[in-house]
């Protein structure tokens, strides 16, 4: 199941607002499964994708499941590289304070709780993307 011990760099690129389409939810489902394969998994939130991490999501009025709490479980799944693009946040009048707190416990640092969100510029993200083996966009 782990692909004969190979480790590849997987990046899931999220560029859509949640709820209007199913892409954010179904992308998150792949991400959770990918955790079982011991790969080097990261997520990117670009353009409207940054809205997926917006805090305070409440779906009571639209009758859909609020899946935003699931992003908080990613740390338990050892997925702790969530790249958020700075320009996309700024264009939308958002800052890190508007996003959910997403953390993981660092096994190599006495289980210290650390943030999973990595704020990057467009240029920095382009470099990170360039180094990936597999980019899955939705």
């Amino acid at each position: 199941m782990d692909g004969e011990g190979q480790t590849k760099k997987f990046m899931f690129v999220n560029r859509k607002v949640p709820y209007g389409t199913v892409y954010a939810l179904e992308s998150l489902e792949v991400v959770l499964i990918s955790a079982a394969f011991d790969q080097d998994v990261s997520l990117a939130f670009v353009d409207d994708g940054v809205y997926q991490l917006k805090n305070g999501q409440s779906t009571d009025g639209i009758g859909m499941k609020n899946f935003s709490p699931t992003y908080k479980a990613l740390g338990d799944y050892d997925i702790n590289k969530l790249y958020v693009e700075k320009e996309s946040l700024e264009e939308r009048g958002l800052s890190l304070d508007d996003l959910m707190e997403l953390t993981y416990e660092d096994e190599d640092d006495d289980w210290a709780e650390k943030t999973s969100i990595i704020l990057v510029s467009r240029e920095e993200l382009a470099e990170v993307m360039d180094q990936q083996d597999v980019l899955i966009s939705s």
Partner: protein
Amino acid sequence: MKFTILINEGPYQHQAADSAYQFAKAALEKGHEIFRVFFYNDAVNNATRLAIPPQDDRNITVQWAELAEQNNLDMVVCIAAAQRRGMLDDDERDRQGKDASNIHPAFRISGLGQLVEGGIQSDRLITFGD
């Protein structure tokens, strides 16, 4: 070279499924290997055996089935996405206690792990979607 193809859109609504099919065909003609074609999101609807498109246009499900038969393609429909959208094979029909199935036998239902494995085992994973 080994490719895995990920498709995210249903047939006819969006060109993604057609583009993926043309790409797969061209890759095979050039001697490449298709490790897997993975149908996710609405793309699970590519696998319906009940569609009746007009005779003067392409039949996307049949095209896939023929390509698969000629080239021994592994075509996987995501079980989670399929269940949401009412796509069932005979086994799932029985397991879930439903009264019908609709997945063409050229496709098989399996989990999302098959997509991740495709990414690991292939040289390239290419996505077609909206």
